[in-house]
């Protein structure tokens, strides 16, 4: 113990004596460990922590798919009932859907974020109300569902945690709902809702099979299920697919022949999109850490080489090899501990930034923290780093030839002895840096390409906000249309407004409203009916959005006022559904086929819009008039030269001058919405690029250190060469050759590594191949130039060696 303390004491003194080395080594490790710790804290919170529910590993998400919907997320009530009646592997199945009722109990109407869930939802998760009662089976019926459970946060925020609210009513959508319970504070809805805010009120779904919305083809609900004990996900999947096949045979009008059930562990269904990105980012930080380790190992090797005489002397005085190794390892361990401490500080700071800048698409990001598991991880990384960086230098120093080392003053040879290991470290660093730089470049190009995508409309100076017309005043669809027409007229009259329109579904706004497209003269069996994105819009919608007319004509006010329904379709719809025909003049219905209802005549074809974000391909689309298909929760669009704040105020004023109970929410400029649609890609790209840059910087530092060390060690050799007639250009060539060889070897390995790892990036890329040769070539040039720049100062130093001084030095 005493000797260990001596080693620590000596190590501290030695590090203090070489502040430049200590600072470079500690900062290098701190960057590597810090990046790793910060990313691990995200992975730990998002992917490694189990979901906060009872036996969360037994929970699965279910969705009904077919050939048209290969990656389904929804299910219908009728289908879920079919599954319940047949499944032997599932203990229970619950359904849920988002719900945004309006609360009008305050000074201004407000949207409340809520969920409607089947009675078994909370028992399935193992959640009991903290106060009051749960949802009983008899509550979950179409005529009895007007009751709610409050979230703990809403109870505290809205009702000041008053326990007496239980049993009282809250008016939502102008209907009284009885508050029957308060959910526990510990209950986290995680990703059950995509609304952006955690649900505040929870009401029964209130369905039975008699409701039209409960039909087998009405897929608008989401499902969570609990596996029976001893049943694996694979077994459940096999059984559910067998059930899907049986149902397709039994009900061929409602289930397509290729029906299947997607059974996914609940966590995976939520994190599937981000999990590959997070693992990829963690992998990137591991590469950064490896580069940092290689740098520090290289520095320690150089230090060990300069300590050969000291080590030889110690050995001559009786120090055992083990003792020498331990002493040198203590020094590297001190460096790694200091690096670890620096890394933790950086990680604290980094996790705060990650939470601040992370997109909402990453669930549980707010739970990210440097907890004991993260600290344990950092401790492990630091210890591993200490051993990784210190072992080779310590062993090298311990195996020094004592006689030769002690006679160094009279040595007759100049030049640096070959250190294959040090060269290997530089090669590995360059390879890792290339892999990360190539990944960053591919992601950056993807991001730029996604940003360059034309959304299909003009997002500039386009303002949007949502409002809802609820309550007895709007039970008559005509009242809805009257209100919307009046609002549009008032908005258009505002100064600076060029156009205004409404739509039931905002492009890139995250909404999903798909409907089967029925063609009057071409009946298609229900399972094969093509699906399109449905929009109910006002005539001026296309002008307000800047969606171009391709053929035919747009809607007119006369159409809106008339009784004959008309439709406009997107280019993709025209191309896919009428590949060899002119769709104009065809008559369609959206949703189910109803021969007794009127058909809408297609009057025009417009450009396609990116409904699901700039980095998603366009989808078949169809537009109907709001006056023929009224929609009480529209999105208002205003093209104006006025700023957003003024528009929000003026819109609110116009809407509330017509009806003070109308809630208004989500005001935003369209450019912000488009930008948000790329937030996850931006986050991944920014982080990966940071790591790529860090890797390049560290690799450049590595090659700089090695080249500087070599030049310093070769000063005598350079002097001799110059004395023998080497010109500066000869010396320059000699040094650059050395650096270039290492860089070239690293790049060859890097290209091979990047090619073999590129498949990991495939899911994150847009509009570019993971093996894009141009990108690889550009990155190759950049990395080579950076390496060359890193060699510049040592090379310049080498060419300025004065042979006379160098010879004296020798």
């Amino acid at each position: 113990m005493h000797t260990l303390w001596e080693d620590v004491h000596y190590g501290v003194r030695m590090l203090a004596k070489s502040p430049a080395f200590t600072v470079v080594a500690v900062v290098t490790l701190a960057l590597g460990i810090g990046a790793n710790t910060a990313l691990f804290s995200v992975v730990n919170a998002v992917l490694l922590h189990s979901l906060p529910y009872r036996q969360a590993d037994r929970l699965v998400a279910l969705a009904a798919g077919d050939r048209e919907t290969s990656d389904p997320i929804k299910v219908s009530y009728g289908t879920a009932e079919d599954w319940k009646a047949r499944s032997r592997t599932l203990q229970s199945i619950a359904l849920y859907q988002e719900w945004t009722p309006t609360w009008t109990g305050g000074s201004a109407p407000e949207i409340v974020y809520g969920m409607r869930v089947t009675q078994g939802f909370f028992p399935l998760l193992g959640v009991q109300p903290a106060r009051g009662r749960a949802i009983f089976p008899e509550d979950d019926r179409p005529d009895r569902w007007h009751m709610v459970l409050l979230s703990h946060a809403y109870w505290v925020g809205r009702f000041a945690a008053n326990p007496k609210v239980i049993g009282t009513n809250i008016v939502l959508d102008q209907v009284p709902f009885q508050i029957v319970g308060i959910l526990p504070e510990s209950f986290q809805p995680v990703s059950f809702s995509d609304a952006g805010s955690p649900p505040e009120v929870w009401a029964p779904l209130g369905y039975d099979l008699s409701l039209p919305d409960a039909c087998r083809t009405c897929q608008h609900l989401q499902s969570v299920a609990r596996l029976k004990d001893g049943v694996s996900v694979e077994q459940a999947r096999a059984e559910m697919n067998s059930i899907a096949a049986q149902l397709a045979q039994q009900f061929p009008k409602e289930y397509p022949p290729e029906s299947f059930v997607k059974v996914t562990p609940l966590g995976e269904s939520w994190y599937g999109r981000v999990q590959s990105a997070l693992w990829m980012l963690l992998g990137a930080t591991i590469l950064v850490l490896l580069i940092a380790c290689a740098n520090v190992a290289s520095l320690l090797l150089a230090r060990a080489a300069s300590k050969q005489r000291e080590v030889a002397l110690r050995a001559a005085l009786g120090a055992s090899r083990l003792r020498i190794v331990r002493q040198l390892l203590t020094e590297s361990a001190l460096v790694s501990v200091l690096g670890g401490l620096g890394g933790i500080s950086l990680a604290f700071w980094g996790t705060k930034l990650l939470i601040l800048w992370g997109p909402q698409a990453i669930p549980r990001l707010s739970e990210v923290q440097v907890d004991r598991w993260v600290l344990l991880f950092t401790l492990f990384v630091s210890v591993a780093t200490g051993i990784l960086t210190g072992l080779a230098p310590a062993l090298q120093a311990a195996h020094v030839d004592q006689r030769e080392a002690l006679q160094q003053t009279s040595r007759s040879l100049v030049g640096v002895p070959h250190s294959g290991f040090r060269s290997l470290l530089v090669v590995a660093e360059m390879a890792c840096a290339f892999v990360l730089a190539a990944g960053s470049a591919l992601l950056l190009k993807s991001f730029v390409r996604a940003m360059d995508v034309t959304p299909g409309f003009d997002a500039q100076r386009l303002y949007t906000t949502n409002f809802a017309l609820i309550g007895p005043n709007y039970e008559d669809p005509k009242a809805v249309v009257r209100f919307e027409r009046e609002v549009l007229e008032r908005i258009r009259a505002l100064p600076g407004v060029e156009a205004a329109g409404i739509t039931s579904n905002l492009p890139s706004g995250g909404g999903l409203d798909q409907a089967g497209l029925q063609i009057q003269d071409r009946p298609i069996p229900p399972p094969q009916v093509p699906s399109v994105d449905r929009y109910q819009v006002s005539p001026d919608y296309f002008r307000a959005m800047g969606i171009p007319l391709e053929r035919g004509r747009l809607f007119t006010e006369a159409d809106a006022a008339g009784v004959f329904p008309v439709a406009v379709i997107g280019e993709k719809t025209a191309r896919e559904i009428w590949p060899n025909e002119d769709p104009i003049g065809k008559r369609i219905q959206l949703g189910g086929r109803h021969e007794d209802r009127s058909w809408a005549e297609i009057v025009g074809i417009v450009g396609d819009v990116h409904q699901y974000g700039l980095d998603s391909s366009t989808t078949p689309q169809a537009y109907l008039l709001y006056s023929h298909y009224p929609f009480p929760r529209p999105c208002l669009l205003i093209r104006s030269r006025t700023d957003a704040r003024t528009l929000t105020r003026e819109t609110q004023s116009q809407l509330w001058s017509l009806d003070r109970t109308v809630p208004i929410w989500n005001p935003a400029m369209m450019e912000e919405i488009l930008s948000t649609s790329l937030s996850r890609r931006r986050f991944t790209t920014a982080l990966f690029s940071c790591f790529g840059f860090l890797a390049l910087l560290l690799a450049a530092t590595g090659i700089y250190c090695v080249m500087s060390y070599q030049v310093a060690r070769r000063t005598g050799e350079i002097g001799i060469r110059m004395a023998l007639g080497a010109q500066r250009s000869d010396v320059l060539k000699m040094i650059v050759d050395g650096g270039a060889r290492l860089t070239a070897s690293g790049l060859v390995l890097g290209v091979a590594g990047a090619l073999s790892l590129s498949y990991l990036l495939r899911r994150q890329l847009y509009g570019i191949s993971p093996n894009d040769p141009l990108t690889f070539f550009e990155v190759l040039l950049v990395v080579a130039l950076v390496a060359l720049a890193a060699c510049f100062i040592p090379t310049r130093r080498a060419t300025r060696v004065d042979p006379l001084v160098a010879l004296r030095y020798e």
Partner: protein
Amino acid sequence: MVETNGTLIKMEGVKKVFYTDEVETHALEEIHLEIKKGQYISIAGPSGCGKSTLLSILGLLDSPTEGNYWLNGQPVAKLTISERTRIRNREIGFIFQAFNLIGDLTVYENVELPLTYRGTSAAERKQKVQQALERVGMAHRLRHYPSQLSGGQQQRVAVARALVGDPLILMADEPTGNLDSKNGEAVMELLRDLHRNGATICMVTHDQRYANFAERTIHLFDGRIVEETQEAEVGA
């Protein structure tokens, strides 16, 4: 270029001053020196007298602060670094006290080095390296690395490297300084043989025994030539 009349080196009023911070060190003062082709000259004197500084200036590793220096009739006192390097490569062969062989290179590659910088063809290099190593009796160690040789053998290789480019003059700085007496004697014999075969040699030594190998000895003291002795017979 001026007529040399057999004079290989001529120095007139050469002075060398080193400036460090506020201190001026006069390393050489008023050096007047002439070396004829084929002469074997030794520069002797106590430690710190300026021997090595003089040899550095003679070998174009350094330039004088004042004075003139002609090498083979060409003024070389004010040449650029690049010009000095070129002349050093073609006209001067160096033998150092510490041998200064490059550890990473084989014997062959070490000897070949001055020819490589001269741009000599590979075939010619091979021939000349072979000849130079044969002259010093080291042709059988071509592929060895310096670390595999004894001190005496290393210095022989260093001599071969100095000879390989057929220089006008060999500059030897304490060539026996790192050798035992037996190997030291052997190297001195080698230099004497080279001189007998026509080589011009300028050697720095503080050992009077080895100074006596030269036909002419210049004694330096405090940067000045204080005495010059001629040997009637080379060798003692």
